[in-house]
């Protein structure tokens, strides 16, 4: 894996919590991300899927170093950025950008679109002010908006247009790697397709590498080369996008895929779903998923399954394989 741009090794992100016990000063610890390893090749898209609370956003934020990892390593083109100080990090911050889910709160309402797109360039001291304006003009066209739009404010745009502005902002400093954290979840179906198409075009044009975070499995399949399935901070399965859907191995992945409502009234899938009564629980030992798993055995309650190769290029963390 010599040409991997991003490599995550045994990443741990823990958060301190208010103590669960009354009158105890020992803080509780929430293991948001636990022992997660994967790598993303240059120019490819890696998808992270999972239910809310699975830690997918936390991983994205840890790679961008919005969170400091508790343990493990994050490598960017071979350099360990997980433990770097702010000063050393600055050149890497330019190479890594992000697009967030909520196009309403992620744009400053008091700035014009031009200010929003130029700000990252100012921070990284790129170009002269005149060149920045030129670049903003170019970028706004790239994302499918008009030059006149540069002088408008975010509230004058619809959700889809705002997301285009977010993408233009992310691209302004010519990044190599973009974390797309649920970039289309807040949009209409008809818009989702457009934004996905645009992200793919941009990837081809600029040779971008994406980490694509989403809870919508239907969408992830279209854009990703490889997908990792997360459950409560643990990676359950990693496989090529097509393989994951045609041949899911982990029972959790199977459950996720079978839960997607099929848009065909002749195929009623809802009745067949094994209504799992279990709830996500971080406190159980063994495999985190065992209380919701239809295949649960004694071993699953005791031993944590490790991620291993079940088929070439298809990793799964389950005792069955």
């Amino acid at each position, binding site marked *: 894996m010599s040409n991997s741009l991003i490599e995550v090794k045994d990443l741990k992100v823990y958060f301190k919590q208010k103590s669960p016990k009354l009158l105890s000063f020992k803080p509780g610890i929430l293991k948001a991300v636990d022992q997660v390893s994967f790598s993303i090749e240059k120019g490819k898209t890696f998808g992270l899927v999972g239910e809310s609370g699975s830690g997918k956003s936390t991983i994205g934020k840890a790679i961008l170093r919005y969170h400091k990892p508790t343990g493990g390593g994050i490598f960017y083109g071979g350099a360990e950025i997980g433990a770097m100080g702010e000063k050393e990090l600055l050149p890497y911050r330019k190479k890594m950008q992000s697009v967030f889910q909520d196009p309403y709160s992620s744009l400053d309402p008091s700035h014009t679109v031009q200010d929003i797109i130029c700000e990252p360039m100012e921070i990284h001291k790129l170009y002269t002010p005149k060149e920045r304006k030129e670049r903003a003009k170019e970028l706004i066209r790239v994302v499918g908006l008009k030059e006149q739009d540069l002088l408008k404010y975010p509230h004058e745009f619809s959700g889809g247009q705002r997301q285009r502005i977010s993408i233009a902002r992310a691209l302004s400093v010519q990044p190599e790697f973009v974390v797309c954290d649920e970039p289309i979840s807040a949009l209409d179906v008809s818009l989702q397709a457009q934004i996905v198409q645009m992200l793919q075009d941009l990837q081809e044009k600029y040779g971008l590498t994406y980490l694509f975070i989403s809870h919508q499995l239907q969408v992830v399949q279209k854009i990703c080369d490889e997908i990792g399935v997360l459950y409560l901070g643990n990676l359950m399965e990693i496989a090529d996008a097509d393989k994951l859907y045609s041949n899911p191995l982990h029972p959790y992945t199977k459950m996720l895929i079978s839960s*997607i409502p099929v*848009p065909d009234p002749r195929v009623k899938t809802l009745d067949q779903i094994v209504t799992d009564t279990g709830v996500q629980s971080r406190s159980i030992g063994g495999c985190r998923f065992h209380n919701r798993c239809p295949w649960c055995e004694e071993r699953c309650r005791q031993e944590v399954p490790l991620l291993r190769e079940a088929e070439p290029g298809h990793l799964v963390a389950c005792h069955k394989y």
Partner: protein
Amino acid sequence: MEKLLEVKDLKVSFFTDLGETQAVKDAGFAIEEGDFFGIVGESGSGKSVTTKSILRLGPSNCKIMGGEILFQGEDILKKSEAELREIRGGEIAMIFQDSLSALNPVYTVGNKMVELIRRHTSITKKEAKARVLELLTAVGITDPEKAMRSYPHELSGGMRQRVMIAMAMSSNPKVLIADEPTTALDVTIQAQILHLLLELQKKNNMSIILITHDLGVVAQTCKRVAVMCGGYVVEEGTVEEIFLNPGHPYTQALIASMPRVGGTFEQFLERDLSDGSGNLCPFLNRCKYADKTCEACLPKYYESSEGHKILCHRREEEK
């Protein structure tokens, strides 16, 4: 079968500083007893405004400009606020997408539900509490006593939506309006909630109106569907007719643009915000079949088969 709820030629407008905006221009559909009725459309198509108008829950600058809403033969729009209050949350109940903001954050779930039940019936607090436990159990909450003591923020999204459903069910409604009830939830939880709605609908023989933009959800649950676009119901029919034999170009485009597992994402629907300007077909600017007749006047409804009506100039035989 007798029509339980009938919406006829509904027109709803919003009044702002910039003038009048017609959100709903012509919405009409009928719901039978025990129906599972879906309303689909993009955001801005008027689907939420239409259903909110049934209970007159629109914001203060929203005005119903015309039409009739017949519930059990009586026009709801002619009823006084006091009469409507009995229907609202009584015979017609509603649940919303954002369950966190729909629940009062300073009351526990139990507290709120007891209040709600005693508002509609004259029973003691103790009896009301027993009823709450029963309702929470019925919606599949495993520890109803704990849920009663919880504040809304202490519950997960799926649990909160279950509480919302339990609250709506407390009055044994004849109609339950569910406005995007699963949009904010994970797929696994979504499946559970939809399963629950189907079960409750069968058990209590109530009618459900489900508003959603997810056609997968519609296909899995609904019996009949209305497709809305730019303030008009452009097509109405059984779920099989809509999916397998869509008549309106908008419905066809909507179905083609759906992301599906194993399918392609190539075809997609261009969004056009100028939708429905003027008194013309709301899909005119985006329609690949649009011709001179479409630019001249608004099309009329025609029935392609029994109970399947389409608002389009193109007739079946022209396809």
